[in-house]
């Protein structure tokens, strides 16, 4: 006399208070890796993200070698009205993804090199975000007191600014400062640097909060107290004791900030801020294609799709990493 109650879901774990698995000691890193190995979605996302990065690294080399020619002007593939000849923006055996209208740029090469620049901007902005966030978060959490209060207000202040508007409005002034005061070469370098800087400068507060929270829990742990009582310099504690314990948030947030900044670059390009053509970024390719949405929709969908895939891959990777390292954090 028995009834089996079954539901299709296979993911649920046993009830509270029972830990079914072996309770052998495992480092968080091992646990995270075990978790990741089973998370197929994250693994696929990771592979795509790495592929994107590899393409980003390869593109400038291939471009130098003349294999992809992202700024070659193939006027001969355009009609007299400047539209690519043939369907799918003129895709053919020699131009796998066709050429762009008006300029006749090979789309494959352009998207590849665009990935390079978009990833570079996103990576640069992420680096600035993480460095700023880590410094402010660590000092804030470790020193506490008034310093913490002041940094807290700076975070409030930073969050008050409308990011996109500031990025747009500051572009003229700050690019000018970069070129005239800091002698950054004009064009792609200055514009790209500007995008990185400003994205990073407005993006750090969230990360600072995360780091601050982590440092608050670390501060009272034995090894920090020990270092403190041994009279280690504060700098040494930050670098030798705290930083090595913060690698997980660094890893997780790198993969969460990357997609955010890839999207931001596209949004900025739509407002004509950031690196301008002929130097390609995914954003400015998309921006160039916007007016062709009706007449050459392939030209529009190609960069749109690359952006969506990259952003999706990094987002999934970041979510997966966060689940692996901090299952309780939830997906936000």
């Amino acid at each position: 006399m028995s009834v089996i109650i079954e539901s299709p879901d296979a993911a649920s774990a046993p009830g509270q208070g029972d830990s079914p698995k072996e309770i052998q000691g495992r480092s968080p890193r091992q646990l995270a890796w075990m978790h990741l190995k089973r998370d197929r979605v994250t693994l696929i996302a990771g592979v795509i993200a790495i592929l994107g990065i590899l393409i980003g690294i390869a593109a400038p080399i291939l471009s130098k070698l003349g294999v992809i020619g992202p700024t070659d002007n193939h006027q001969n593939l355009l009609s007299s009205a400047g539209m690519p000849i043939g369907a799918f923006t003129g895709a053919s055996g020699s131009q796998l993804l066709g050429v762009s209208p008006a300029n006749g740029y090979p789309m494959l090469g352009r998207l590849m090199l665009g990935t390079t620049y978009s990833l570079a901007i996103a990576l640069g902005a992420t680096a600035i975000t993480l460095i700023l966030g880590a410094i402010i978060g660590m000092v804030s959490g470790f020193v506490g007191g008034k310093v913490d209060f002041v940094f807290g207000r700076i975070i409030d202040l930073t969050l008050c600014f409308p990011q996109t508007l500031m990025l747009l409005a500051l572009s003229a002034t700050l690019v000018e400062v970069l070129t005239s005061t800091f002698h950054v070469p004009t064009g792609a370098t200055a514009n790209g640097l500007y995008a990185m800087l400003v994205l990073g400068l407005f993006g750090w507060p969230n990360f600072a909060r995360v780091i601050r929270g982590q440092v608050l829990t670390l501060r009272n742990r034995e090894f920090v107290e020990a270092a403190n009582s041994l009279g280690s310099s504060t700098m040494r504690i930050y670098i030798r004791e705290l930083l090595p314990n913060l690698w997980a948030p660094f890893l997780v947030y790198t993969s969460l900030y990357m997609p955010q900044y890839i999207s931001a670059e596209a949004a900025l390009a739509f407002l004509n801020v950031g690196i301008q053509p002929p130097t390609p970024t995914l954003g400015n390719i998309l921006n160039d294609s916007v007016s062709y949405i009706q007449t050459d929709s392939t030209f529009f969908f190609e960069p749109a799709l690359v952006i969506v895939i990259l952003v999706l891959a990094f987002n999934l990777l970041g979510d997966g990493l966060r689940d692996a390292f901090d299952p309780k954090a939830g997906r936000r």
Partner: protein
Amino acid sequence: MSTPLTKEQGRPADAQSGPLLQVDDLKVHFPTDDGVVKSVDGVSFTLEKGQTLGIVGESGSGKSVSSSAIMGLQRGTSARVSGSILFDGRELMEVSDEEYRELRGQDIAMIFQDPLSALHPYYTVGAQIAEGYRVHHPDASKKDARNRTLEMLGKVGIPNPARRIDQYPHEFSGGMRQRAMVAMALINDPKLLIADEPTTALDVTVQAQILDLMVSLQDEFRSAIIIITHDLGVVADVADDILVMYAGRPVEKGTVMDTFARPKHPYTWGLLASMPRLDQERTDKLDPIPGNPPSLINLPTGCAFNPRCAHRDRVPGDKCRTVEPELFQIGTQQARCFLTDQDRTEIAAAHDVSPDAHDVSADAHDRSQESA
């Protein structure tokens, strides 16, 4: 069975003359990516009205899961529950979800381990207790429910209930919260109360108060109680019978008197040895059981306890490692162990834990034959 408090709603009188609760071969399995977790694997016991059963074991031994199964809380989840739960003459495995829901809180109530997390943070304590009353008394007015709640709060010893009723859980102390949980569980005058580690989160004096409260209320309401705990002291205090669980299976069953006096299973010895006792000298150290509970996915072959059992080599033929012992009847008790009474006596001689020699000889058995 009826008490003055439950007169407004007629319940079926005891339909059966049998035990209040009869659990037979209860199994709760959770399929996971790594395999099936057998949290509870063949638990059987009976419980009479007004009696108290203590279920004991380390964490992960399946005590909480089996009580959840009796409450039907795994319905609708991935858990696979099988076996038989005969409650008050009804087979709970066959009742509909709605019938089960009506039973819950009304005939079977439960008290949980951590009263802070078990109470909803956004509702007042009074509202949460009253809700338990109103879902089973749809005709009762809000006012009735409130009065009834006030009465219960008073009964469980919460001072100034009129004020406390409108407070939130976070405004209560730990002990007060557990009293509120007790009030919530008893408001419908249940026939069976399951208390899952009701005192673990409390400090010792409060523990005692809560246990006293439960005992006195049991006297008043004539409820049967299952108390789940890893604390043998609690069992000794309140329970009539004891069920010791290990790795999802019962390893020893019997009355509290007998079992405490003459534990038959090495695991029970271990539990008893790890319990601080007043009659021990303070300098004696407690003996924790070595090793960890096994994985519920891959149980050790043979006796599940064998890797941690210091006496496994006493059983000839490496039987402990290869053959799984059944629950042998040993006098009034049952134990899942191959050891002979002879072995027990010898071990007792070497240890402080003392299986009584008289009883052992009286229950002589040829275990090797039985297990063959």
